[in-house]
């Protein structure tokens, strides 16, 4: 784990002429960007050979601030664009930033199929449980009963669990943390970046401007505290299960870490066999 200063991160990795960011005060997206860059720094990843891809949304603005190649695609399409980049040039490291709506609603199908194909990309999904950019409408991740501008009487739809979906479809690396878990989060992003195949890191992140305000949940700090309280570490959870107990809390931690041959490796091997 690196304990280098923010100044070094800013100096080495950010496009200074793009700053300041569009993120609201207290927004968690900046933290996730910070965690990601620290992971990249620790792994000494070549930024000349790294492409950040995103869709549309507050979370999808992250690549704009990073000094590397960046592809700010369309709402929901980040993973499909990233698939093209990675398949066309396997030497590039491809990292996707996507919101919970971008990844789970409009882009849900690309999410499933990139996992199925096991495309060698790392997807970092910033889950703020709402559509931040458009002013706080219901997202596929919004908890039951939560208020959003389009669920003024409370949400009646069951939310999707992005990480569990990734696990079920067969992603070789899946982890979920909150912005209140910087160390764990950085470690998981590092593992994700080192994994060959589809790796997924979901970070629960406060959107005080919309989710917090509409649900009267207080400041960003209160929201972070709420995330911490409403989640349970996988190790504890498994212990509970063994004891025959259950919980409504969202499971966090490292959820999958297996080896699985990725698309590019398979494709290259099969092309070689044709010759």
């Amino acid at each position: 784990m690196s304990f280098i200063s923010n100044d070094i991160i800013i100096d080495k990795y950010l496009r200074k002429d793009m700053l300041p960011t569009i993120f609201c005060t207290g927004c968690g997206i900046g933290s996730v960007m910070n965690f990601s860059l620290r992971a990249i720094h620790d792994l000494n990843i070549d930024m000349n050979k790294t492409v950040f891809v995103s869709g549309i949304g507050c979370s999808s603005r992250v690549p704009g601030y990073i000094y590397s190649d960046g592809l700010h695609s369309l709402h929901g399409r980040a993973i499909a664009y990233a698939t093209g980049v990675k398949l066309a040039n396997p030497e590039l490291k491809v990292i996707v930033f996507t919101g919970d709506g971008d990844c789970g609603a409009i882009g849900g199908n690309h999410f499933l199929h990139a996992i199925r194909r096991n495309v060698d990309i790392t997807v970092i999904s910033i889950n703020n449980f709402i559509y931040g950019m458009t002013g706080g409408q219901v997202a596929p991740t919004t908890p039951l009963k939560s208020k959003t501008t389009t669920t003024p009487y409370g949400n009646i739809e069951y939310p999707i669990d992005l990480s569990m979906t990734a696990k079920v479809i067969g992603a070789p690396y899946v982890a979920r943390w909150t912005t209140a878990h910087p160390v764990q989060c950085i470690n998981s992003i590092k593992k994700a970046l080192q994994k060959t195949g589809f790796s997924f890191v979901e970070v629960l992140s406060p959107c005080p401007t919309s989710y917090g305000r509409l649900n009267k949940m207080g400041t960003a700090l209160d929201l972070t505290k709420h995330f911490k309280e409403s989640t349970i570490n996988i190790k504890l959870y498994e212990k509970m299960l063994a004891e025959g107990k259950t919980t409504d809390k969202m499971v966090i931690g490292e959820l999958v870490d297996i080896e699985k041959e990725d698309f590019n490796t398979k494709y290259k091997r099969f092309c070689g066999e044709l010759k």
Partner: protein
Amino acid sequence: MTNDVIRLLGKKNLFIQGDDAVVYGALIADCRFFAGYPITPATEVAEGMALWMPRLGGVYVQMEDEIASIAAVIGASCTGVKSMTATSGPGFSLMQECIGYSCMAEIPCVIVNVQRGGPSTGQPTEAAQGDVMQAMWGTHGDHQIIALAPKSVQETLDLTIEAFNLSEDYRVPVILLLDAEIGHMREKVVLPEIINVKVDDRVPATIGPDKYRPYRTGFTRTSKVPEFAPFGSGYRTYVTGLTHDKRGFPVTTSAEVHEELVRRLVEKVQDDMDIIWYHEDSFLEDAEIIVVSYGTTARPAVSAVKMARKNGIKVGHIRLITIWPFHYEKMKEVLKNAHTVIVPEMNLGQMVHPIREAVGKNTKVISAPKIGGAIHTPYDILKFIEGDKN
């Protein structure tokens, strides 16, 4: 590369269908990435690419839908690899948002639309020319794409190569508009002599990464097309579909930045209209009636014009090969001596509109539509010519 392809294909003379001609044209043009989703009558393009890409060091991938297909094609093209997808009406509709992205971010790509009867799922196996307006105006906002319409299998191969060249030259999506008739029709095709094949590549960045601006034009040439630095080349470019400045950074509320960008996107193509406006004509000298056709419809149109000439009618023919951009000036010029213009189309009248606009009120412009799948017979068109000889 091109040499390898022609050698691999073996024979020089082939008897193939239009969809296969697209594949061979793409291989010769150095296309090395194909992403698609099966749909009649374009599936054979995907099947051909699935066969050839792995043998030529390229990538074939069947995506989960057409949106993913064009998205992957654009992503691949960002790395500098020439990329293509092929579809038909329903898939073409799904691709529209990404086609706009390709226009806005200036990422070259070739989209083949083997047209079938619509709207909706319509007539999967029947030919149509119903997507002509959609090709130009299917995506939102002001923009300019290029669309080409071949009339034979040979021309399908040649225009596929040209589609890639234009896409690379202008950094725009180029749409190759086939229809089910040509897509599935078998004809003799002669592969081009290697020496005669012109394969263009997008102009690379010629200035160092410190001075390079992804959307600044005029570094080395006067063209309005910016120079390209592929992902991974160390130039660290940011590509966005938002309105952006010359650095590629989003600037979304400035009227000046938006107008300058969007005007350039349109003008970079339209400024070269004289160069990219491909067409063919016959019997125009003394023509009082002119038939304007494109694609498959040109075949019966030519026959009809010849038959009418035999009957002593002063009729000429012009075939649009480049259907977008539409060359208003040239069309006005070419059609100025005709009192009547007849536009046979396998739709209820689409290309007839810009033609009407080009000639003005003093010329009669008649739409000769045919829908349902069968192509016009020469008599279908002759009827309109004869009906109007006085």
